[in-house]
Every structure is written in C-alpha cells, then in structure tokens.
C-alpha cells in the first residue's frame, strides 16, 4: 500500500519537474536571440564589438535608433511598409470575405469550380520567371500596385487558405439569419454587408493578422519587381540588403574585420542591423498576443475539411 501511494506521488512530481524545465528551455531558446538583438540595439556599437553582450546592454545608447531614423532610406522604407500593410490588408480582407460568402452559399451554381480554382493555387505555382514576365507585360514593374496584386508569399489579393477559414466560419452561423433577411427582400450583397461582415469580426481579425504579417514581412516582391526604385523599398528589403552583406562575412571572418566601423558615432553595421531588426519586428509582436484567442480558433477552422 505504502509503495503504491509513493509511486503515485513521485511519478507526477518527477514528470512535471522535467516538463517545466523543458518548457523553460523552450522559452529561453525562443526568446534569447530576440532579447540579445534588443540588447545590442541599445548598446553602443563599438562596445558591442568587444563581445559579452547577452540580454542586457552594457553601455546604453539611443544612437543606433537615431541613426536608423535619421537615415532617410530606412525612414521612407518604414512608411512604404506601413502603406502596403494597411492598404493590402484592408483590400484583401474585404475581397476574401466577399468571395468566402459566395462559396458558402450552397445554392450558388459556380460554388465548386470557384472553390477549386482558388484551392489549387495553394499547391500550384507557374513559377518565378513566367510570373516576372507577366508582371512586366502588365507594366506593373516598379509600381506600388505590385505589392497589392502579386500573389506571393502571404500576400496578394486573395489567399485561398484565408478564404477557406472565412467560408467555414460563415457556415457555422445560423442559416435562419440569412434566410429571414432574404425574405425581407435583402439581396446577397446586402446580406453580406449588413449581416455577414459584422458577425465575422473575430475571423476577419484573424485573417487580417495573417495578411498583415505577410505584407509586412515580405521582401521578395520588392527584390524581384521593384528593386530599381529606391522610393518603393520596404523595411524588410533594407534589412535584407544589410544582412546579405554580413552573412558572407560570417562565413569568411577575414571580411568582417574590414567592415566599416564609424568610431566617431560609435555605430557599427551590427548595431544598426539590430536596431532595424527591432523596428521591423516590434509592430507585429505588439499586436499578435491580443489576437491569440482568435487566430488559434481560426487555424482550427481552417483545418476542417469540406
């Protein structure tokens, strides 16, 4: 009896101790690189090169951020990023919701072909070079519009995945709401605008987050389609240009010692990069915890098969 009871007590204790230690490990591994960058961004650049900066700055300074925001390029790129995120998200969420409503209607005669055309895009891509030629032929090279229209990673007007998430959500709403509105003479567009849209707020917040993250984090479309116009450069693209020059120096250490160090301003490429990294990630990191409940539910909806 005694042994049985003690077995029941020690097993959970050992397990939970191990489990919490493991979770602590996960949390540290997840947060450390980010906290390290945060510390470097607030530390004097020259001091950082001495090494030994982990999660707390040694010589506090705001110089790195000053340099970032005083540099016209980064400042302009920041606003281009904001503009594409706001415009791209608003347009895409509205159109995706409208499309999702139409394919949620069982009586809609083109429901299946329309759904299929979009779902296939999740797996099928015509490829980079043909897409480049299309964008070129449409005269969209080096225009802001390409950021909104090009169906790249997480961006584009419609994401098939988001469409399915909203469709599933609309189907979970009581059909009687729509039917009674229709008996009162409301058209499909009216039903969508005055009933579906307000009721879909939680799921729309979810896909807005997904779309905004895709837009904000996108660099490839700038690189391929708009790199020859500096005024269309985005924050991620500016960061990418800095990064590609430093990765090669990591693989080949002799190069990094020759990297420019501006002793007068105490700024190094590494500290500037850290500051831009923080500027480029903080907006999203402030938003996502508040939407957690919604996107967890949204992802689960998206995984439901038709």
């Amino acid at each position, binding site marked *: 009896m005694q042994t049985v009871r003690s077995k029941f007590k020690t*097993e959970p204790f050992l397990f*939970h101790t191990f*489990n*919490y230690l493991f*979770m602590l490990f*996960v*949390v540290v591994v*997840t*947060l450390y*690189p*980010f906290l*390290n960058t945060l510390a470097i961004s607030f530390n004097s650049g020259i001091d950082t090169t001495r090494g*030994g*900066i*982990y999660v707390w700055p040694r010589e506090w300074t705001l110089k790195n951020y000053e340099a970032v925001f005083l540099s016209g390029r980064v400042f302009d790129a920041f606003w281009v990023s904001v503009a594409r995120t706001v415009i791209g998200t608003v347009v895409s969420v509205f*159109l995706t919701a*409208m*499309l999702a409503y*139409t394919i949620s209607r069982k*009586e*809609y*005669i*083109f429901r299946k072909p329309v759904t299929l*055309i979009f779902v296939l*895009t999740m*797996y*099928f*891509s*015509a*490829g*980079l*070079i*043909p*897409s480049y*030629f*299309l964008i070129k032929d449409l005269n969209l090279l080096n225009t802001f519009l390409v950021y909104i*229209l090009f169906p790249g990673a997480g961006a584009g*007007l*419609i994401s098939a995945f988001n469409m399915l998430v909203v469709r599933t959500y609309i189907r979970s709403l009581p059909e009687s709401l729509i*039917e009674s509105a229709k008996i009162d*003479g409301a058209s*499909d567009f009216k039903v969508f605008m005055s009933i579906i849209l307000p009721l879909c707020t939680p799921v729309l917040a979810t896909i807005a987050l997904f779309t905004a*993250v895709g837009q904000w*984090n996108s*660099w490839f479309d700038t690189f391929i389609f708009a790199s020859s116009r500096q005024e269309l450069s985005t924050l*991620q693209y500016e960061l990418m240009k800095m*990064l590609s020059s430093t*990765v*090669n120096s*990591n*693989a*080949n*250490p002799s190069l990094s010692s020759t990297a420019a160090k501006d002793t007068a301003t105490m700024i190094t490429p590494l500290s500037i990069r850290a500051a831009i*990294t923080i500027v*480029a*990630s903080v907006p*999203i*990191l402030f938003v996502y915890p508040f939407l957690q409940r919604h996107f967890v539910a949204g992802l*689960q909806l998206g995984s439901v*098969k038709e």
Partner: protein
Amino acid sequence: MTQHTVHKVDLAPQSARRTESFWSRVIRQRQLILMSFPMVLYVLLFAYGPIWGWLMAFQNYKPGFSITDQTWVGFDQFRFLFMDEGFTRVLRNTIAMSFISLILGFVTAIGLALLMNEIKKTGIKRLIQTISYLPHFLSWVIVTGLVSMALSTEGGIINVVLMKLHLIDKPILWLGEGKYFWGIVGLTNVWKEVGWNTIIYLAAIASVDPSLYEAAEVDGAGRFRKIWNVTLPGIRPVIVILLIMNVGWILNGGGFDIQYFLGNGQVLDWSETIDIFVLKYGLRIGNYSLGVAAGIFKTVVSIVLLYCANTIAKRLGEERLI
C-alpha cells in the same frame, strides 16, 4: 417588386429548383456571380496566366523577341537539365532539406504539443504558448539574421555555450562548411514554426474523447501508455492530413529564404535548391528557358506527389485533403 418574386423562388422546394434552367439560375444568382467573378478573373490572370510562359521551356528563348518568334527546341532544355551534374546535386539538396525539415518539424511539434498538454495550469500554459508563437511572426529576413548571429564565430551564442561546456575547443565556422548546412536549415525551420505548429495538434488532442482516458486508467495505464495508446491514435487523422499537405511541398526544399540568405560560396554544393537554381538561371544568368524548365519540373512533380499521397490515404481509409 421584382426582388420579392426572386426570393420567393429562392426559398422554393428542391424539386422546383431543379426544373429551373441554367440561365435563369445564373440570372437569379447574378449578385453572387458579380461578387465572386472579379476575384476569379484576378486569380486566373495572376496565378494561372503565367502558365503561358511555360512555352519558354520548349524554346531557346532570346529576350527582345516575342514568345511566338522563338526557335523551338522540344524537350532539349529538360534533357540538358537532367544531364547536368549540377542539377542532380540541386535535386539532392532540395529533397534532403525537405525531408529533414519535414521529419524534424513533425516530431518536434507533436512532441511539444504532447508536453504542453500535460501542463495543467492554464495561465502558465497560455504564456508558454504565446512565447512559442513569437518566431512565426518574424520575417525570414529577421530569422536568418538572428540565426547567422547566433552561429557567428565572434561571440555567437552557440559557439559560446559549446565552449563553456567544453564540447569544442575553438569556435566552429557553422555557416562555412557544407556538412552542417542541412541540419541548420532543419533546426531553423523548427525554431521558427514549432510553436505555431502545435496549435493544430493541441486542438486535436483536446478533441480526443475523455472517456477513452478514463477507460485506459481503469486498465492501469500510466501517463506514457495513455499518450501512446489513446492520444496518438486519436490525433492520427490530423497527422495524416498534414503529411499529405506537406508532401505537395517536398520540392520546396524546406523553404527558399533560408538557403537564399544563409547559403554562400563555401556551402553552395549543399545549399542550392531548385528555387535558387531557377532564380540564378532566370535573373542572374539570363537563361530563362532552363529556369522555366526547372520550375515546370518542380510544379508537375509537386502536383503528382500530392495526388499520389491523397490517393494512398484514400486507399488506407484515412482522412483526405481533396
């Protein structure tokens, strides 16, 4: 007034609707059509339109002439592609990095979800989850930047920790040697997405019938037996469907961005994937035809693999994607 009659038809019984002609239904549903067709046209143009450019793969494309005025070479580009030793290596890298990322990704996400599920304090669990989602929201530009910093030989945390533990004597040039590259790609993918991927597994675990656990407990099953005999079989449909989806992405090589940013001259033989190959031939060398041929190969194989996985799952009576 007309609106009213329209909706009377709408609510008519199924039998009455079936006798209705196609065109009268089109007219009645004109609003649904107007609400969806602009987007259909958009996707046909932007996602399917570029298929036209696939013709380039069967030509010896020279810029400056229209696509209809090119010399046709049949399957020569494809033949060249498969004879090329470089492309064989590219293919090997792509498949290897995909498999490493796929397997590591599945095992770690399922494992983490199972362990998270054992945490009973809701507040702590929520906090750990929120933190674990963080890297998913960072862009690849930022993530690869963090990775290259962590792996740096000048005070990078990985080298510092390994030195402190006396596992190595001097810093290792992680990004300068090909043999480490595949592992770095796999672990970077895990770091970014493992927390995010637990969302679906945790939801699946939560939907397992609680009476099954009670029954297992009556039979004297401990914590690990319950996980093995109840939880894992319970979430099998979700695992299968996610595997099918991932099979369709096997030629993505575990992502484009990691190889693009972390690959460099020293590790080229290990880091180059199909996507990088296409980019190199298309935009740097200007051999569009060869780049398009490689792209077509990738798309066609992906669709075939997806179809096969889906069919096999159907045969085995598992959950299907399409």
